[in-house]
């Protein structure tokens, strides 16, 4: 089953409430995916600074900071539950190589705006553990997982991020991910898990690195990704949704002058401001809808 949610704020006055909105959305989708949960938050970028979201199996933040600062000057480490947000000016190519030498750290996302958190457990507990309510930002995407395709682990949890400031959540399953994984890996896209969604995320990263727009990439994906899906994909500039041609996997969109919200079911957005006067519609199959700067 799985639950997917996304919110893009058009009106900045709501930015400080982004985490609160997403918390309500994730909580009401907990029944669709009680195995694990995760979310990606996009907030304003600091010039020449990168944030690396890292899942850590140790709680020794100080030690990790010390170890990393041997390689990197000017590093800030913040710990939230079992995740660390590492802020540094070091560019991804170099820093990711450094992280690879630390087995206790696994990178879940990076970029100038994005922060990703994911964890095994009931979504209601997961959002509490990460204090999602306190986050602010411009847009956010979340997922509650009912595992079908791969194991219930943090590696198997969404959102998946295979490129700078990119993320993807998925409701459904892909059938041709093994072939696609091999061909993307040959092109140099790093896919770490055996999960189908990570392959789709890699497919999008590949399209974006070929200078295609997110919309173009998702449209191409309709021909090349075989299976059932509703995808919500996020980038630095905004978010997009696409459903496969059969459209078995649900999605509903509510749009007001202040925000756009997407969810698997309407009940996930019943708590949003003025939602009853929003334009509410279901995305048509095989069509890409996107919002952004």
């Amino acid at each position, binding site marked *: 089953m799985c639950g997917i949610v996304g919110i893009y704020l058009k009106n900045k006055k709501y930015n400080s409430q982004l985490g609160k909105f997403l918390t309500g959305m994730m909580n009401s989708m907990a029944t669709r995916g009680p195995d694990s949960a995760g979310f990606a938050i996009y907030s304003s970028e600091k010039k020449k600074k990168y944030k690396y979201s890292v899942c850590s199996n140790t709680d020794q933040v100080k030690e990790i900071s010390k170890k990393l600062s041997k390689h990197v000057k000017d590093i800030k480490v913040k710990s939230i539950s079992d995740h660390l947000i590492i802020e540094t000016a070091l560019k991804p190519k170099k820093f990711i190589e450094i992280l690879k030498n630390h087995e206790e750290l696994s990178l879940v996302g990076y970029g100038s705006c994005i922060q990703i958190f994911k964890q095994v457990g009931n979504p209601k507990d997961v959002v509490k553990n990460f204090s999602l309510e306190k986050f602010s930002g411009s847009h956010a995407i979340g997922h509650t997982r009912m595992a079908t395709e791969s194991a219930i682990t943090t590696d198997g949890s969404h959102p998946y991020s295979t490129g700078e400031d990119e993320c993807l959540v998925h409701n459904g399953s892909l059938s041709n991910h093994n072939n696609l994984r091999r061909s993307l890996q040959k092109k140099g896209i790093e896919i770490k898990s055996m999960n189908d969604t990570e392959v789709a995320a890699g497919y999008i990263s590949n399209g974006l690195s070929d200078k295609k727009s997110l919309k173009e990439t998702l449209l191409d994906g309709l021909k090349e990704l075989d299976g059932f899906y509703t995808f919500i994909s996020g980038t630095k500039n905004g978010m997009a949704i696409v459903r496969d041609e059969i*459209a078995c996997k*649900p999605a509903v969109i509510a749009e007001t002058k202040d925000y756009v919200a997407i969810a698997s079911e*309407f*009940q996930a957005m019943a708590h949003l401001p003025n939602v*009853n006067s929003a334009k509410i519609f279901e995305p048509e*199959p095989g069509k890409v809808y996107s919002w952004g700067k």
Partner: protein
Amino acid sequence: MNLNLKKESLRKVNETLQSIDRKSNKKIFKISNPDGNHAICAGLKDEIEVTIDGHTGYYCAGMNMNANIIVNGNVGTGVAENMMSGTVHVKGNASQSAGATAHGGTLIIDGDTSSRCGISMKGIDIIVKGSVGHMSAFMAQSGNLVICGDAGDALGDSIYEANIFIKGKVKSLGADCEEKKMNKKDQNILRSLLKKASINESEIKNFKMYGSARKLYNLNIDNVSEY
């Protein structure tokens, strides 16, 4: 009687509506704050009127018998699924599989529905004032589906003996579905359905009728290699 889903549990509200004291005069009910909850007004069996103020989730008014249910909002997947009798009137849009497998009663949708409207319908009358999505009336067995707008791909795929009346464009027909000539009897059926939904009867002339070509009823020996 007012029922507030913010104050009372869904189970309590449904139980109240499902166990009406037939001697009492309480026949009119209002539900506020549905907030997309599932199975609101499922399994009602008495001649009562219920108005839901807001948007509902899946299977709203499922298995309805006798009750008249009005939704001032949108409904999720499977509104009035397996309805036996009564009326369900949705003032907004409906999601997938509206009126699925329903045996009787009337479902009126003022807006659009998404895919598979009237899937496997078994006697219900569905009137959609807007458009319907792909695979509508899939394997429809009996009853009538009236569409005032357009239909998506594969309309009436593998249809049995249900009728489809449509005013707008059909993107494509499904297997074994074909246009039929409307006779007096069909026109009378359409007239009464339009009347039920307060649509001007003079519109009849703008509708086309579709039904089963009945070519899938028996094995065609030419296709034997396909099996």
